[in-house]
């Protein structure tokens, strides 16, 4: 595994661990903190009556969780689409830099030189990264 993927994997494992540890070692109801905040208001200010109600309220927890799943799916889909487009773009330009990165029209000033070096570095650091992954 390249250094690039190894670090990505570690970051991912870090997130999983942080989620798993409370579930395994902490006993609690795992209620939402938003709801707990609301309960706190009701406890300290029992006379407060919400003066406005949601335009639409999901009729049950099931419907609500479905809507949340759709929200995550839309977001995840859009993110995946972006990475797909970016990958294809790089592949079409010969696995090379993104458009505008070292295009012929770009003046060869200080900035563009730096950018080219950055790209080379990106590949070096990526190991089997941008170039290699295409053959896998």
């Amino acid at each position, binding site marked *: 595994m390249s250094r690039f993927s190894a670090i990505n994997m570690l970051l*991912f494992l870090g997130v999983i661990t942080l989620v798993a540890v*409370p579930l395994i070692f902490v006993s609690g*109801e795992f209620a939402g903190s938003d709801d707990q*905040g609301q309960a706190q208001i009701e406890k300290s200010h029992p006379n407060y009556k919400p003066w406005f109600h949601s*335009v639409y309220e999901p009729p049950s927890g099931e419907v609500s969780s479905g809507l949340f799943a759709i929200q995550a799916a839309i977001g995840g889909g859009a993110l995946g689409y972006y990475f797909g487009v970016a990958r294809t773009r790089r592949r079409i330009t010969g696995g090379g830099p993104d458009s505008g990165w070292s295009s012929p029209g770009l003046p060869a000033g200080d900035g563009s030189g*730096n950018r080219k070096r950055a790209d080379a570095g990106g590949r070096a650091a*990526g190991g089997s990264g941008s170039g290699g992954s295409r053959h896998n």
Partner: protein
Amino acid sequence: MHIAEGYLPPLHAAAWTVAAAPFVVHGCRALVRQVRTDPESKLLLGAAGAFSFVLSALKLPSVTGSCSHPTGTGLGAILFKPPIMSVLGCIVLFFQAVILAHGGLTTLGANTFSMAIVGPWVGYGIYALIRKLGGGLGVAVFLAAALADLSTYCVTSIQLALAFPDADSGVFGAAVKFGSIFAITQVPLAISEGFLTVLVIRLLIKASPGELSRLGVVRDSVRRSGASAASVGEVAA
């Protein structure tokens, strides 16, 4: 951090809406300018919004035995600056209020202020500061995302404390109470969000280095370190 519909007194709800409005309007202008000067960034704008959309729907368990969700605003603030993230965050909150009964229209101003204004500005401020002091990109992104997340929940606690001060200990006592519900639960989630945002930035640098260079995320580090490998190596470290 979503204050439920109707759970802020009318005066507070109005005040937070008035406070948030100029940031969002200014953000809309910045967004239009961004799309006009760099039409290719539209897709990445969508991706940054999508990241916040996913993360703010993701309720994760925490060490306090309760659940909360990250905000995902650090990424957009780093890529596109806080004003643009304010608009994206406001859109996310609006959808959640209307479709999911999560948050609310009367509390949209207050929620926008915490998640889409204070969070992105704190995150971006930390990011810019660390970069200026010569810190690595990875560290800067991690702290920016984590503190954008955490500060959002601190603001929510203060907003609720101002509206519902404790009978004995006043606003401060209430802030501590709400803080113990929101902010402490949020600490591990903020760390998770930091990791996730670093991961996404690393993947973005690899997938579209040109775009990140145009946005100044990569170029800065190259200019500073002079050497190329360092720029991405830094993120790797």
